């Protein structure tokens, strides 16, 4: 190690630390203000309080929104995980030409701004005179989530030993049996991980929801509407709670996706 090398490493480490602070500090500000005993979120902070959390628990509007969010996220999770997992298996086992065409095609929703996904659906529902509701929200969220599921499950499929399937087929298993008895158990960590990703993706989504919902609101669209009238401290409490919920799910998803790597034969 030369001296120059060590100075370089130190500079890079310091820079990385700064970037991590930049990424995390704003989120801590929200958490801090959620306990701040003041109607207006301004520094310096006043005393500690839990009243904004109580406000949230007493608010009919916010609790309904929370219920709607959970409902939509759950439905999106089931649909997106099913479609995405099947598609990932189908893609991995189809010919090179099908793959070359289908893979980029099925990932385009990921490469499209959420706003465009939302208004394109709104436009179509409008042309068909369809009633907007939580169902149409679920439709939109599933479009957004499926490519992520395909991505995660594909990553796991690539690492699987093809001989396991060959052995099963040689021993007389039908194609359906191979998928149900061999592939799905092997893919379980990735499938569960991607399910959690789909859930959080839906739970956090605001733009697609905003344009595809009827009269019902989810938690993000309620926060969005509240922010239009200015910052109220309840928003900090609600944001903190959703952050905690999604981060717990995220760590679970990561642990799950990683856990499948080593053992399991």
């Amino acid at each position, binding site marked *: 190690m030369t001296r120059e090398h060590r100075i*370089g490493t130190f500079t*890079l*480490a310091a*820079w990385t630390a700064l*970037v991590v602070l930049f*990424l*995390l500090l*704003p*989120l801590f*500000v*929200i958490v801090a203000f959620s306990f701040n005993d003041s109607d*207006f*979120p*301004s520094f*310096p902070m006043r005393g500690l309080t839990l009243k904004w959390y109580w406000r949230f628990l007493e608010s009919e509007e916010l609790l309904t929104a929370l219920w709607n969010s959970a409902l939509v996220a759950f439905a999106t999770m089931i*649909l997106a995980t*099913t*479609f995405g997992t*099947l*598609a990932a298996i189908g893609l991995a*086992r189809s010919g090179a030409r099908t793959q070359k065409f*289908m893979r980029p095609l*099925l990932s385009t*929703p990921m*490469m*499209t*701004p*959420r*706003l*465009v996904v939302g*208004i*394109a659906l*709104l*436009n*179509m529902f409008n*042309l068909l005179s369809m009633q907007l509701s939580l169902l149409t929200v679920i*439709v939109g969220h599933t*479009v957004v989530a499926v490519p992520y599921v395909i991505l995660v499950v594909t990553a796991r499929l690539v690492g699987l030993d*093809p001989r396991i*399937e060959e052995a099963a*087929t040689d021993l007389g298993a039908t*194609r*359906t049996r191979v*998928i149900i008895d061999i592939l799905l158990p092997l893919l379980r960590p990735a499938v569960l991980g991607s399910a959690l990703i789909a859930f959080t993706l839906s739970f*956090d989504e*605001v*733009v697609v929801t905003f*344009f595809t919902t009827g009269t019902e609101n989810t938690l*993000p669209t309620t*926060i969005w509407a509240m*922010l239009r009238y200015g*910052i109220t401290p309840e*928003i*900090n409490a609600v*944001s903190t709670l*959703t952050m905690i919920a*999604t*981060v717990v799910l995220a*760590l679970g998803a*990561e642990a799950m996706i990683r856990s499948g790597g080593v053992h399991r034969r």
Partner: protein
Amino acid sequence: MRIGRNSIVPILTPATAWFGLFFALPIAAMVVVSFWMVENYKLVPTFTLTNYAKLAQPLYLSIIARTFAIATIVTILAALIGYPVAYYLAQRLKRLRIFVLTLIVLPLWTSYLVRSFAWMLVLGTSGALNWFLQGIGVTDEPVRWFLYSEFAVIVALVHIYLPFFILPVFAVLDKLDHRLLEASTDLGAGPWTTFWTITLPLSRPGISTGCLLVFIPAAGSYVSPELLGGPSVLMIGSVIAQQFGLVFEFAFGSALALTLMMGILIVALGLLRIGMVQGLK
């Protein structure tokens, strides 16, 4: 082994059908509607180019230009800020690597709405940054242009999409063949020469993917500019949303959205071209 062709079709069907019905079809409908017109808040099927002609008005041209300028600045900043981080994680950090990566990915799991909102608390006149600057005596009065400005929008967008740049670059640098770097050093190249001639060119695929993943959502962003930009920093996303929300101009809104998509597509194809690395494999 291949599972036979006829069994592929059924399991690919649900995703493909959903994609066709609720993504491809709506986009196609938007293309059609962008040539229609709106009378008395109702869409009238016809063929007109007026929606696209309207785009040529200076007002809309300036909004489109601002949108792509902001997205470009955000992408460049994310690249400059994120590359050293990805390099450090992939090449220098061993033990804490997973931990630091988790910290970088963690904000991705919180909603972009919450992250935009966080910057309102940080950048406002009584926000964290002004409080800090006044505390250490850099300024006596709160700085007003922090919030409701292009500055605020750019800072928030960099914050929201930076991990999307770091991850693909990290993935490429992590797989970099160390023998190439050693060979370069053995042949007498200094660390900078090695970096400029070996490491940087080989990280091009990661850089181009990263830029793509930042540029696309930044150009199409709606929530951040609405919350942090104030009335003077209008980006195309807000104008599109207005056409569909407030003024029922679905035809013009569709034309705007397609213009955004075309712009993004051109930039994306350019970036993908840059990302192709010839030779050296």
